[in-house]
């Protein structure tokens, strides 16, 4: 990692490893904030007729919990690994566009701050409350989110914050596609690419195709709210269903943006600790690509209750069920990887196996609402909340923690404590099943989602209490993790280059790697370059010192400056005045101009 010290060196960094760490710590912070929001939600619902927060506050909490976890925690935690690990896995010195990479991070940070500023700025809008956080759900269905029904700035914060976050994701998406396609080390053909890099590539293609849809639909809503356009107004001859279609055309691929990176991580962790190559590499890769394509053809399964008619319902039921096949194939191949292995039960392996075990449950409950008639009883109830927490918490979060325990030594140079890691794992596993399994029953017994209160007559009070206890147990497990992180920073064992005996290139260089990553770019001859296979000898790790000095470009202020223009422009829409738009655009353009003409050898 770059040796420069001090605050300035972080603001101007264009080193993919530092940006990866920035993504990691920022996303972890947002993950904790989203978790706190979940705890308040669960405290409110622990009993019928809960009175901990008001209806208004509850609606803000569940909206921000979802928005935060998806856009500010899970996606950027994946980005942390894309940034830190992908260049190392493919034998590159950095990403293709390092300054664009810094821009992505700063835009993400500022978008996240803008969204969360809404918790504190109510008085500026004469709102009569401290908090004016978004309150229309992360899906922000029009026409509820139109000015007529949501007059406050709440939905403006959502619409502007998410728009800005989309810009960050798009910039990063193009960057990583170019990086993976163009910067691979000599000999690393596409079919020698580590599966994590493959899943990253698929994810980024989904990002650059799905996010523009979100960009457009948010713009339409902005036009409705700011200028009285009527894209979603039934009274003006339009239909609010347009929002639902466009949102879910983005929203379902978004699910795969959240899960494919975790699937990639699991596909790295299992072979390392089973000491066996990934079973069915080609099939795992192709099924990931197939999931990426099929994710586009299923959006209306979020809309079965709309009443689109038997033909549309049947078609989308069929495509949705089809997507279960490549997903199942991946699971079987992971089990095939473990089968016949020599499995070392590290914490990373625990989390990877936890991913498989929990994802199976989420996948199976998913099949039950792929069936439209069954879905009509399940959608918008806690049953669906149970389902997507099994795939996003049991799946994505477990997968990301597998990645954290696996790559922590590479990223920080120190090991995490293994016994503490296993405490974390078991508490989190028990906690999540206590929290989310009862929700299946709560939903089947008739409790809808997004309700701040429920009647005791519903008979789901005890189940909700169990669920709340589970949520707090998850919080305890996360505290164990944070303690482990703190302990590792102070007392952690210094990590060697390769603590696990990994097969991929990131383990061939120091932990953390030097600024230039590889003293000599390796030449790859097999899918598992560091393992001996039937036809290949392992490659030699690069020498400790480069044979000749390697020039690493210095930092740049301009990505940060350009990024700052975006929230300033957002102020225009928030304050209904045009000047911040010009001011923000000027900052953005000036930043981009200086960036474009910045001398390379700065």
């Amino acid at each position, binding site marked *: 990692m770059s040796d420069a010290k001090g605050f300035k060196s972080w603001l101007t960094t264009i080193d993919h490893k530092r940006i990866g760490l920035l993504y990691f710590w920022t996303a972890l912070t947002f993950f904790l904030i989203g978790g706190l929001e979940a705890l308040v939600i669960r405290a409110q619902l622990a009993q019928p007729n809960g009175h901990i927060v008001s209806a208004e506050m509850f609606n803000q909490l569940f909206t921000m919990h979802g928005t935060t976890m998806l856009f500010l925690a899970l996606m950027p935690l994946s980005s942390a690994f894309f940034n830190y690990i992908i260049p190392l896995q493919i034998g590159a010195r950095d990403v293709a566009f390092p300054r664009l990479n810094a821009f992505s991070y700063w835009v993400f940070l500022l978008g996240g701050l803008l969204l969360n500023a809404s918790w504190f700025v109510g008085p500026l809008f004469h709102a009569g409350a401290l908090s004016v956080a978004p309150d229309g759900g992360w899906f922000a269905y029009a026409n509820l989110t139109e000015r007529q029904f949501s007059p406050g700035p709440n939905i403006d914060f959502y619409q502007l914050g998410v728009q800005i976050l989309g810009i960050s994701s798009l910039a990063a998406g193009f960057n990583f596609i170019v990086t993976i396609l163009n910067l691979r080390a000599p000999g690393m053909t596409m079919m020698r690419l580590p599966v994590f890099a493959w899943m990253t590539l698929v994810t980024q293609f989904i990002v650059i195709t799905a996010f523009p849809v979100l960009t457009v639909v948010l713009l339409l809503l902005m036009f409705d709210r700011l200028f009285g356009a009527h894209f979603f107004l039934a009274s003006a001859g339009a239909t609010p269903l347009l929002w639902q279609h466009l949102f879910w055309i983005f929203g379902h691929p978004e699910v795969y943006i959240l899960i494919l990176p975790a699937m990639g991580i699991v596909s790295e962790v299992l072979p390392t600790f089973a000491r066996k190559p990934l079973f069915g590499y080609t099939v795992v890769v192709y099924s990931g690509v197939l999931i990426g394509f099929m994710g586009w053809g299923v959006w209306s399964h979020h809309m079965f209750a709309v009443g689109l008619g038997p033909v549309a319902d049947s078609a989308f039921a069929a495509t949705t069920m089809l997507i279960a096949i490549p997903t199942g194939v991946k699971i079987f191949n992971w089990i095939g990887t473990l089968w016949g292995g020599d499995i070392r039960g590290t914490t990373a392996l625990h989390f990877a196996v936890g991913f498989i075990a929990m994802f199976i449950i989420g996948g199976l409950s998913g099949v039950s609402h792929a069936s439209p008639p*069954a879905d009509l009883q399940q959608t918008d109830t806690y049953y669906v909340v149970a389902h997507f927490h099994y795939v996003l918490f049991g799946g994505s979060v477990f997968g990301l923690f597998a990645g954290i325990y696996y790559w922590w030594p590479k990223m920080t140079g120190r090991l995490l404590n293994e016994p503490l890691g296993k405490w974390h794992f078991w508490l989190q596993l028990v906690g999540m099943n206590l929290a989310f399994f009862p929700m299946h029953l709560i939903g089947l017994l008739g409790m809808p989602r997004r309700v701040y209160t429920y009647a005791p007559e519903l008979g789901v009070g005890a189940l909700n209490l169990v669920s709340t206890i589970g949520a707090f147990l998850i919080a305890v497990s996360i505290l164990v993790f944070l303690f482990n992180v703190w302990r590792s920073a102070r007392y952690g064992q210094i990590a060697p280059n390769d603590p696990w005996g990994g097969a991929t290139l990131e383990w061939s260089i120091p932990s953390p790697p030097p600024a230039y990553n590889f003293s000599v770019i390796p030449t790859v001859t097999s899918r598992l370059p560091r393992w001996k296979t039937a036809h290949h000898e392992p490659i030699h790790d690069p020498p400790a010192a480069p044979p000749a000095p390697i020039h690493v470009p210095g930092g740049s202020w301009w990505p940060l400056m350009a990024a700052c223009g975006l929230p300033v422009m957002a102020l225009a829409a928030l304050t209904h005045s045009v000047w911040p738009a010009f001011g923000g655009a000027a900052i953005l353009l000036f930043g981009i101009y200086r960036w474009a003409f910045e001398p390379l050898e700065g």
Partner: protein
Amino acid sequence: MVRPKGKSDLGTVDAVTRCRLWLTTAALALAGCAGPFPQSTLRPRSDYGRAIDHLFTDIFWWAVIVFVLVEALLLIALVRFRHREGRPAPKPARGNTALEIGWTLAPAVILVLVAVPTMRTILATAGDAPSDALKVEVIGHQWWWEYKYPNLGIVTANEMHVPVAKPVQVSITSADVIHSFWVPRLAGKRDATPGHVTRMAFRADSVGEYSGQCAEFCGVSHANMGLRVLVDSDSAFERWVKTEQGGPEAPAPASPVERGKAVYSRSACLACHTIQGVSPGVMGPNLTHFGSNTTIAAGMFANDPAHLAAWIADAPSLKPGSLMPRMQPPLSDAEVAAIVAYLQSLK
């Protein structure tokens, strides 16, 4: 509906019942109390509800089978191949074409077995009732339900009456934002979307009171948008229709009820509420037969004088965001009591 009625059905019904008993027992054990679960999707009381329940039960058992098999496989792999000192290096198996084909086809076959009954149920429950069915129009409002019976000339709110064992054709729309009409024991949910009319059909098979609520997030009081469907015997339904079709009885002269009517008629109430022959407002629920309702405020409270008085005095404090404003200038306690007496007399 989906399953042919006949001898072959008995075995399945047994399995279904057992499953339901098992699930309900588990739920009861966890829930601690023996509540009747008024919104349980697992205790359907209509042809539509049962069709969905059969389908879900099938899918549920497929899921259980797959769950047990795959998780067992995973556990066996973990235990059998855990690290032991001296274990020889694993064989670097890279894949197996026969296995890949097998575990692609196996889920495909199961999914076909799920998809076929799914399609049949979709078609069987598409929302078309016979043409002589009772027609009810549901209109979602923030945060209450309006029901119109176009062929009977009845307009009411929040409590829907239907006859037992007769087909009911429900058409659903919204006056403001998107809601979702859901009575779990009678039917799957159906969105109420402004500018669209959607349909559902069901035939309730036992007399009783079925509770439900809005299932699509519709703003601050989404949680407080309850509803009830009262399934009446034929004779009770006819009586109800007769009462609803008649206007309200004139109050006795100089009674507290008549005083209430006078207060009502000079208050802001009449701008939003209809009482046949008294006030024409259409923003809020029709109150012509308010006294025969069992609940107020879209199922939030019992229709008793205490709750009604609190509601009339200050609705937004009981139901966040309620569009029925706090009265300005405030009504005196006596005036509120008079209105309560009047409204409750409207049977």
